[in-house]
């Protein structure tokens, strides 16, 4: 029972880190970036390849995965994404799906299409039992890392002006610039940071979710569910949505394995019919 909850939370946390960058690009920048999962995949492969081929320790791989994906994100933002901010959403969908196709084939070409298997350091492999609660050390590690990240993110967005400057830039680039906001810089750093988080999520998730070239397509739906259910106006929304999704998925599979995928999708539909703009909407006017 407790173990299931624990596994669900770990799974949810992982989904959150993977999806939060998408929540930002989609919710705040109003850009539909379906290639988000590709950045996660890049992070995953950076980790796996560094560990397999260069014997870099796992802990050192995580920041490298973040930096690598963030750099890639920054470069692509500068060269390809920027002209697309002003295009219709459907064009953005087409473009980013095109990128996914390319990424999938490219990884297949250079690395191969088999599942990548990593070997965790021994201290992450164990398991601690406290009464009826069994905690895998790796899942514990995931929860810790993700919680720290969440708090840091929340701080950046709530305590600094970055969040509102970003929203202002999205609302009206021209006027935001006229008010002294460096719109290009704001977008570039947001995009790079979101991609970096995805890369970190991919690095952490390779062990649990598996890693092969179809990763970006396989998990796209899960990311979208997190963003849609969580709403796009805060960090807490997607966090709670991801936790809900993680726990519901794990518990559903444990208690009613026959119902399979019904649970997650039905839950999503019910929530969205009940709160069409997600669980958490920015409302204002409550003061």
């Amino acid at each position: 029972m407790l173990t299931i909850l624990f596994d669900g939370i770990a799974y949810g946390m992982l989904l959150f880190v993977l999806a939060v960058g998408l929540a930002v690009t989609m919710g705040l920048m109003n850009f539909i970036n379906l290639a988000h999962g590709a950045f996660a995949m890049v992070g995953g492969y950076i980790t796996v390849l560094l560990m397999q081929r260069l014997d870099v320790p796992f802990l050192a791989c995580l920041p490298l995965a973040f930096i690598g994906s963030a750099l890639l994100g920054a470069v692509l933002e500068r060269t390809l994404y920027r002209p697309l901010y002003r295009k219709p959403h459907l064009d953005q969908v087409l473009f980013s799906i095109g990128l996914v196709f390319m990424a999938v084939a490219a990884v297949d070409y250079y690395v191969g299409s088999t599942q990548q298997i990593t070997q965790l350091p021994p201290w992450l492999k164990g398991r601690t039992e406290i009464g009826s609660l069994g905690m895998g050390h790796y899942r514990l590690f995931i929860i810790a890392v993700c919680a720290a990240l969440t708090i840091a993110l929340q701080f950046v967005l709530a305590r600094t002006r970055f969040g509102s400057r970003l929203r202002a830039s999205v609302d009206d680039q021209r006027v935001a610039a006229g008010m002294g906001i460096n719109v290009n810089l704001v977008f570039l750093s947001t995009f790079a940071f979101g991609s970096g988080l995805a890369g970190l999520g991919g690095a952490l998730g390779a062990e649990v979710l598996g890693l092969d070239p179809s990763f970006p397509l396989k998990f796209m739906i899960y990311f979208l569910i997190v963003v849609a259910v969580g709403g796009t106006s805060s960090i807490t929304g997607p966090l709670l949505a991801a936790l809900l999704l993680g726990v519901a998925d794990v518990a559903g599979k444990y208690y009613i394995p026959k119902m399979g995928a019904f649970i997650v999708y039905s839950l999503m539909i019910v929530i969205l019919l009940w709160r069409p703009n997600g669980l958490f909407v920015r409302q204002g006017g409550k003061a």
Partner: protein
Amino acid sequence: QDNVFKIGLILPMTGQQATTGRQIEAAARLWMAQNGDTVAGRKIQLIVRDDTSLPDQTRRLAQELVVNEKVNVLAGMGITPSALAVAPIATQSKTPLVVMAAATSSITEASPYIVRSSFTLPQVSVAMADWAPKNGIKTVVTLVSDYGPGLDAEKYFSERFAFNGGKVPEKLRVPLRNPDFAPFLQKVRDLKPDALFVFVPSGAGAAVMKQFGERGMDKAGIRLIGTGDVTDDDQLNDMGDVALGVVTSHHYSAFHPSPANKKFVAEFMKANKNLRPNFMAVGGYDGMRVIYEALKKSGGKGGGDALLAAMKGQIFESPRGPVFIDAQTRDIVQNVYLRKVEKKDGQLWNVEFDVIKDVKDPGKSK
């Protein structure tokens, strides 16, 4: 032009089943490299198509190959629905269809023109169900991927196991695109059976074994058994020590100690950047042999019915051991081995320690 004998090989080359396609194509090409591309005076041409595991694509490609390319033989078929979708075309056009991968029992019944060179899941699961009770395993929980072959494995294993006096308290089915096995494994752990019987498609096996180890299930006294898909030769080395000691039943191991196999493995690895051949490869390799032999036997004429007749009843020594194409069912009859993962020369292998000879597909023996 008339002299060309065309083989239309339809495989999943992209998407989740891509490794299946790669292994089979590589094996087919190896066969041709070893045995030349002229048989009974005819030049063999291999036409490869990617169906991305979509049955409607498989069907259209098959139709086009038959109508436009006038292929003499259809082959490949990564997944069961693909094979079933193509079956009517084989029948209608009287073109033999050599199934090299798809492993549901019922496939050969879908058309009299289907011949199988791979295996069936009932074949290998039943062997495990016979072995387990004799080795101290009384209760087993099954965990299979929720699609045709998985259901076959579940059905034949649990029926035979129950017949042999064992108990199956729970049968778990995992969605095919399941990212996380944790809840299922936790359920198994809480049920505390003697062993967990697993069938997942090649590729997902590593994740199961790792999470099996991580969850401390071996320490809780649960053994992991399954069909050979779980310890796929292709990936076994990457799985690491968690795989050690896992017992599986299958028709092929790359470690099979026969000269024919040693030669096959060595040359396959040489031609494919050290990729280890797996049971998919051997299906493709033997499938090509069946086609070559049939062409030889029918004197190079290559009519569908003649080829089919010449395929039925072939007996030969495959890298996996002796095999036989049952003339009645057109399905393959072969030895099924019990194997344990062991480390030899720093590498992991499925080492065979027992064999059940000449297993027919139990799906048809009723």
